[in-house]
């Protein structure tokens, strides 16, 4: 249950929020309990109204899982003076307690957004910045630097990036700096079931020698899932000590890399499938060498699960649940996860090296696979 935003002057936001809170509090006298819940400050940066509308649709689900004071910043070059609106979001928990979350919309020119948001942050709780535009956060320039300076973590979603190679290079350079506490890519979170099944399905106890002797990795993905494929490849490279030594755009739907592994070279391929779910990885096939030849395991998305099967029946097939969570659900899960994820940082570093390898092999340096789509489709 949520009320429509009430327009207020920017300097009167706190007063207006308190006024919204009072009737709810009065109602609390006849209810089992009423909690003004707030685990975090959440700053959401939107570069236009269309983006803000999509964000607003996600927020109820986000604050239901992670109660937060949400400051939605809309970058509007025509908004002078700045405008503000306040509202509350109310949900009931299992015991009938009413939880109230506060939402503030601030519409202003980019230069004044930070000064509007800063006094509205609540103390003693963490602050997260959700960078909603489909571009690498560092490409946001001064505004991004200032907003990130107020936050304990920066959350973005690489799945929408129009030029994944250039964006990967820019983001990895920024995120690996030691002063950046937590950078979180929702696409990385989407990979968790893949990482879990890959780690289990290639465990030495299941297929002895597979991890140490991997020779080829092939990732097939939907039209908009290249950043995920890239991250997964970066993850494997980082965990297994592979160094990229070359990259190539083989066609308009295929990229390949040569990597140097501790024992032998590794070939990696990312292949776009026109028919696959556009936001998902479809299949990861790995091949490894044995004394007598090679073996293969195939990890495939099937509806709401991931399945691993082994070509030469070296191990039993198995699956894990892998529902496709909404962006809101991913965001809610990421918000309390404030620890710097070193595995992710290493992954980004390798992904950047892989991107540079591709750039070096791509003389025209044109953006790779511009999606041509704007906005969020999930």
């Amino acid at each position, binding site marked *: 249950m949520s009320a429509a935003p009430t327009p207020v002057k920017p300097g009167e936001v706190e007063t207006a929020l308190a006024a919204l809170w009072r009737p709810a509090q009065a109602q609390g006298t006849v209810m089992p309990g009423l909690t003004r819940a707030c685990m975090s400050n959440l700053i959401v940066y939107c570069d236009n109204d269309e983006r803000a509308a999509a964000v607003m649709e996600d927020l109820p689900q986000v604050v239901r899982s992670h109660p937060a004071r949400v400051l939605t910043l809309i970058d509007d070059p025509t908004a002078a003076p700045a405008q503000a609106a306040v509202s509350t979001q109310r949900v009931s928990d299992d015991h009938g307690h009413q939880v109230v979350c506060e939402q503030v919309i601030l519409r202003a020119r980019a230069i004044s957004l930070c000064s509007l948001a800063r006094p509205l942050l609540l103390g003693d709780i963490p602050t997260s910045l959700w960078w909603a535009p489909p571009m690498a956060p560092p490409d946001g320039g001064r505004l991004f630097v200032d907003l990130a300076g107020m936050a304990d973590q920066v959350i973005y979603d690489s799945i929408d990036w129009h030029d994944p190679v250039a964006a990967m290079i820019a983001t990895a350079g920024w995120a690996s700096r030691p002063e950046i506490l937590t950078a979180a890519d929702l696409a990385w979170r989407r990979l968790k079931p893949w990482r879990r099944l890959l780690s289990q399905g290639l465990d030495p*106890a299941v297929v002895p020698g597979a991890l140490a002797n991997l020779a080829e990795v092939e990732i097939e993905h939907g039209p908009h899932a290249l950043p995920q494929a890239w991250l997964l490849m970066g993850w494997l490279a980082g965990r297994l000590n592979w160094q990229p030594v070359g990259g190539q755009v083989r066609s308009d739907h295929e990229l390949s890399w040569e990597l140097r592994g501790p024992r032998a070279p590794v070939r990696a391929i990312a292949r776009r499938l026109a028919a696959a779910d556009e936001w998902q990885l479809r299949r990861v096939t790995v091949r490894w060498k044995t004394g007598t030849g090679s073996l293969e395991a195939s990890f495939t998305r099937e509806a709401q699960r991931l399945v691993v099967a082994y070509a030469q029946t070296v191990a039993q097939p198995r699956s894990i649940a892998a529902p496709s969570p909404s962006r809101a659900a991913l965001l809610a899960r990421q918000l309390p996860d404030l620890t710097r994820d070193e595995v992710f940082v290493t992954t980004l570093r390798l992904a950047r090296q892989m991107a540079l390898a591709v750039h070096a092999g791509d003389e025209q340096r044109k953006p790779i696979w511009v999606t041509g789509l704007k906005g969020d489709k999930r």
Partner: protein
Amino acid sequence: MLEATQSNPLVSGLTSNLVPQPCSLVIFGGAGDLAGRKLIPALYNLLLDGTLPTSFAVMGFERRPLNDEAYREFGREGVTRFSRRAPDDNHWRELAGRMFYASGDFADLGAFAALKARLEGIESRLQIPGNRIFYLAIPPRLIGECVQQLQRAGLVNQPAPGKPFSRIIVEKPVGSDLASARRLNDSLAEVFDESQIYRIDHYLGKETVQNILVMRFGNAIFEPLWNEKYIDHIQITVAEEEGVGTRAGYYEGAGALRDMVQNHIMQLLCLTAMEPPYSMTPEVIHDHKLEVQRCLRPLAGEAVERCVVRGQYRRGYAMGIEVPGYREETGVDPHSATETFVAMKVFVDNWRWAGVPFYLRTGKRLPKRASEIAVQWKQVPRLMFDQAGVAEPNALALRIQPDEGMSLRISTKLPGPRSRLFPVKMDFRYGTTFGEQASPEAYETLLLDVMAGEQTLFMRRDAVEASWAWIDPIRAVWAGQGRSGLNEYPAGTWGPAAAARLSEADGRRWRTL
């Protein structure tokens, strides 16, 4: 850390650091209540989360004749009724394909030999390297025999590097007194090393119980005040709304003291009173908890009459509905002297807790289901404010279930010209603060721990026996008293008046939950 973690770099950074090993889980009593309600639903949820080992099998074993298909149907029904997440066909089929059943008598060595042959065939087919977990969901009287048969049938490996592991899980109660607990532990020790034995108290698998240590040792503000200088007393309550229900057969021989105090309440007491551990390894945590038990002031003879109240519910009203008294329940002896309520005042005789009473209470047919630990600090040395106010001492309540969370009572000034005090409550609830997040059930946590070889949340032999050694003298006094000394209380109330007097005699009172 475990072998798989060391040799599998892909595991790093995934949520759980525990790596469950490929194994077979053999459930003795596999078609029983515990398996259907808790164990199979827990396995299903572990499968959904992708945390079950890659190679895994479940084998149910008991006397009831069933085939694999019927056993899978039994499991499906359990998951449908009791799982926190509804079954979907794909995942259920995957678990069902790994479920098997063997029937046999515990006295029949041939049945165990057949079990072994069957297991070996399944393990070979599912590429399970011989790791086995034996879950004894059976009455305690069968445990010794079952363990011996496992040994005779060659189903058990001694712990050794590189060899498949064998682990055994024992449900509470571990014995019914010190002598029987020792016998049971001896029979386990004849076949299994202590490092292979996992004694379950499912309370320890609860998130909120695990949070006690985090709250105490993850926050700087509580520990300096966590001692006799500042704390007036501590109350631990484990209240049940239900009556004895269908458990009369067990409960008649147990009673509240053995059913609740010896294990659940003892664990809560230990976690509340233990010294700061220098690490979170199982041995260190177990040692620190055991230290508390060793400091518990013995209750025997006249001290039992002074410090312990036992009660039994009689006919009364629960939520407006008339309910029978304990001795009217099906399966209960009409002259039963079994206690359904215990309240006691105990002391932990060490430097930290000298003179601080711990009031413990548990019972059936109390007004509501509620478990909590409440720490009440001493009143300020001199109250200089308007005496018309209400000056309650600070209290911290850790709610274990339901409505998990904690609250802190502090005094504040009532608005107005005078300095009148009023107690207010700062409340933290898991459900609201952390929003909608599904916590794993206790059995999921505990089964995963066993598969990964993690013993922190299980009870060590010396702790179980120390607990019985403390409990037995109380029971000895009661045995001499029979029904005299047993206080009746109406169902739906907070226990007998004698329990209230226990705290009131000290100028204190039980908390309203």
